């Protein structure tokens, strides 16, 4: 497992964090290549089942990033999402998913540095958690 690298699925809001990721590229900031981005129109679009599905597909970590409160392109999608994610994260952790696997951030399209910083932080923390052990859907355990 020494050369194990985590696989992280990142759901990024098109209007902010995805732009920050682009800008981080423009600024040639470097961070490890562990996550795969799924662009969504708003964090409000993210159905909790996407996060479950990511875990079921063996993601070692999930990262959701959207606009700062008040900056939602769709007025308040991120504020509804904030409630949803608070409960989702708690329930996932309550049922045994390690807190180090679930990450949420607010990153505006100008915050390339923050994006790169958080990216590194997310990857580092997921690495600490080690390879995902739970909630991974494999061949059905049946008769």
């Amino acid at each position: 497992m020494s050369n194990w690298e985590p696989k992280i699925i990142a759901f990024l809001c098109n209007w902010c964090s995805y732009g920050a990721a682009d800008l981080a590229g423009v600024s040639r900031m470097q961070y490890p290549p562990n996550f795969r981005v799924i662009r969504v129109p708003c964090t409000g679009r993210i159905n909790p089942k996407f996060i479950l599905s990511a875990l079921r597909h063996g993601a070692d970590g999930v990262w959701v990033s959207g606009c700062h409160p008040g900056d939602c392109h769709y007025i308040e999608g991120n504020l509804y999402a904030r409630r949803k994610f608070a409960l989702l994260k708690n329930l996932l952790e309550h049922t045994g998913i390690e807190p180090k696997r679930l990450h949420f951030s607010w990153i505006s399209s100008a915050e390339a540095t923050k994006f790169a910083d958080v990216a590194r932080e997310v990857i580092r923390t997921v690495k600490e958690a080690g390879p995902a052990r739970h909630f991974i859907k494999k061949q059905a355990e049946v008769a």
Partner: protein
Amino acid sequence: MDSLEGEAGNFTAKLKSEPRFIDPLRCTGCGDCAKVCPVTCVSEHNCGLDRRAATYIRYAQAVPLVFAIDPEICIGCGLCEKVCLAEAVKYDDQPRYTDLKVGSVILATGNEVFNPSDFDTYNYARLPNVITSMEFERILSASGPYRGHLMRPYDREEPKKVAWLQCVGSRDTHHCDNPYCSGVCCMYAIKEAVIAKEHSHSGMEAAIFYMDMRTHGKDFEAYYDKAKEEGVRFVRSRVHSVESVGDGDLEITYADENGQMQQEIFNLVILSVGFQVGQEGMELAKMLGVDLNENRFVKTDSFTPVATSREGIYVCGAFQGPKDIPQSVMEASAAASASSLLLSDVRWTEAKVKEKPTERNIIGERPRIGVFVCQCGINIGGVVNIPEVREYARTLPYVVYVEDNLYTCSQDTQVKMAQVIKEQGINRVVVAACTPRTHEPLFQETMSSAELNKYLFEMANIRNQDSWVHSGDPTQATEKAKDLVRMAISKVALLEPLKESELGVTRKAMVVGGGVAGMVAAKDLADQGYPVFLVEKSSRLGGQARKLFQTWRGENIPAYAESLAKEIESHPNVKLFLNSELKHVDGFVGNFKSTIQNGGEPELVEHGITIIATGGKEFLPEEYSYKKHPRIVTHQELDQRFAEKDPSLKGINNAVFIQCVGSREPDRPYCSRVCCTHSVESALELKKINPESDVYVLYRDMRTYGERELIYQEARRKGVIFIRYSLANKPQVELLDGKVQVTVFDPILQRPIRMQPDLVTLATAILPNESDALSQFFKVPVNAEGFFIEAHAKLRPVDFATDGVFLCGLAHYPKAIDESIAQARAAAARAATLLARDSIFFSGMVAFTRTMDCSSCGVCVSICPYNAPRFIETGRDAGKAEINPALCKGCGLCVASCRSGAIGLRGFDDSQIFAMIDSV
């Protein structure tokens, strides 16, 4: 602009475009040129706090995001030309001259920030840790010189204690010639303090040194209150001097509220600098023949706030006067309205109609995916193993064609791409290149030219989010590129052609409210030729303006309202409904059907847009013995007496104004914005009538923002006495033997003062009119105080989140008449963007319900900020939700919130997102 000739409706503007030396059409924004450029200079965007190369983009949000060469510092070494694979560098670029035929001109050149270098007591020029608020903005910015980390310039240490000094270059005729208030500095200083505290790792202390705290904007007072709660210290004092102490720290000397001199040490001092019109602005005005006022702002009057002295030239923003973003945006729309009024006869004559491409019907076809992998010169190809990605893509399901290109976005590749799509019968396309945020529209254009629905497209971001950020790890970057391509392919296979639906617009307007705001909006639209239904609750037009006396500039308000009312009443395009109210509203943007009740039979009217201008009213207090004595009046009552030239006013020897009556109180926390100016203006009027009279204004903060500050200064010059009181120690008004006695604690004298005035004027709050019914009819929100809530406080100040509904005037927030007029014209301009068209198109990326799965729980209806979902009223699916594509913005909130899985989102549907997750 070199010159402007001609007249309103027929100008010729001569324009000069400076050479950029990099062809913006070829530049891909990759930034290789900047990397190799050997010279640097300070970055003006970051206020000189860091450096940039000669090849540069001024700021990250620039549109288009392409480079230019700064000829001032370029040494012509040729390196950038060598590295640019897109061949965009053009050293022999020349200035371009254009003659532009235009009908009107709008001046929106803004303003310059006051340079405090000459302010020697603050030592800005000498001490690196004394900076301007603009510099501090850059420091806090994530894209700024310190990447958003809170640091001071001198030693890049995080400051623990920061002071803001207000009114630097504003309200000041000693160090500069700027007597006016810049109107924005109080609020931005508070904002900077709050954000700096958030950025701080060590609980930074913030202190703001001010004269009057001017938080008169909507929701500003609440922000001020919150800042106080969060520990920002507000010190009422003008700072005397700033001196260096220790290693970069600063000592501030100031007089406290009791007049005692104090010294305090800070790590960083920020000068809250104001606006001024600079040399360029004055020269421009001169060239255009536009008059400036005594403060060098473009001269306008209260009733035509965006018209300059030269017909056909309009002004908006800070060139017109100091103001904040919302007011600037409103004025910008107002100027657009004024301009389109002038040009309404020639509307669409210069417009070019885009040809609608024919579209191949791909329904029922097996997906045939074409994948185009971009090398982006060496930007991607230098890191990611392109042949490997290309060959990998070939193995994926439904992929029938793969190629890689040096620049997929180049013109020749686009032509080739369209050809390949047609030849190969490709029905879905993936481009693995840069970011969809900049390039999706370009490729979608190519899709259209290849007769494919543009939504059958997906990008894999293998540059900005891969090769550029993992340049040290080509193997992993290549793996990531393959994953991203696979994810894009899995999604694109599930995409369906989307229709951009078209909906006819009823080209008529409804304006609710016949006050000044409503009338101005109605008139602007009617003058442009649109039929307007104006609904007024009372029996006559004019609203609150009828009850006012004059503007702070001395313009007669009732006369203006009267002439406006006359124009409206006789306007052929206005259908007036007096004594009327809305009873019912159906429909949505472009297609409203409203029932107006005016006594007799209700009348049904159809309109495409609605402007809400229901106005406000004066608060009638119960405190300060109001109504208990004839000498205790409100502003409107006093205005009435001014208007009637009440002879008894001559006999007033002692008058007291009490500010903030019913405003800035715990149960009505907002500032009513206009009362300070109103009191000063009335005080001056009393002084005019009886120069010998003693006039007192009892205030908490004098909020004579902008150029209104000048009459505050005039009042003080003329002997009006201003006494500050605090909320904890409000003035007392008592009736003693039929006389009025006012007691107030004077903070300077440190003792109570008693007066027995002949007149007490209460500057009472402004309340909104009843708003619940309209709020429900048009599904637009109302705040706790009853004011309507605009779509965005700064960027969309007259729009609602609900399309096709706009707002202006006091229904939005208390404001002065010039501001109401500007906002009304802005609302008209925004409305005209819809009314000018026969039909409107909606994005294909909208939500839709599968009624069979809908459980009627109503979560979608309750959460959508745009009111797109609603319950079906009749038929088999009655009670289930449906989504109006005309209102849906495609955010997907309802989709993710629907527990029943009954809502889908075209372009971002669950199946598509699941497919991407599956293929990670």
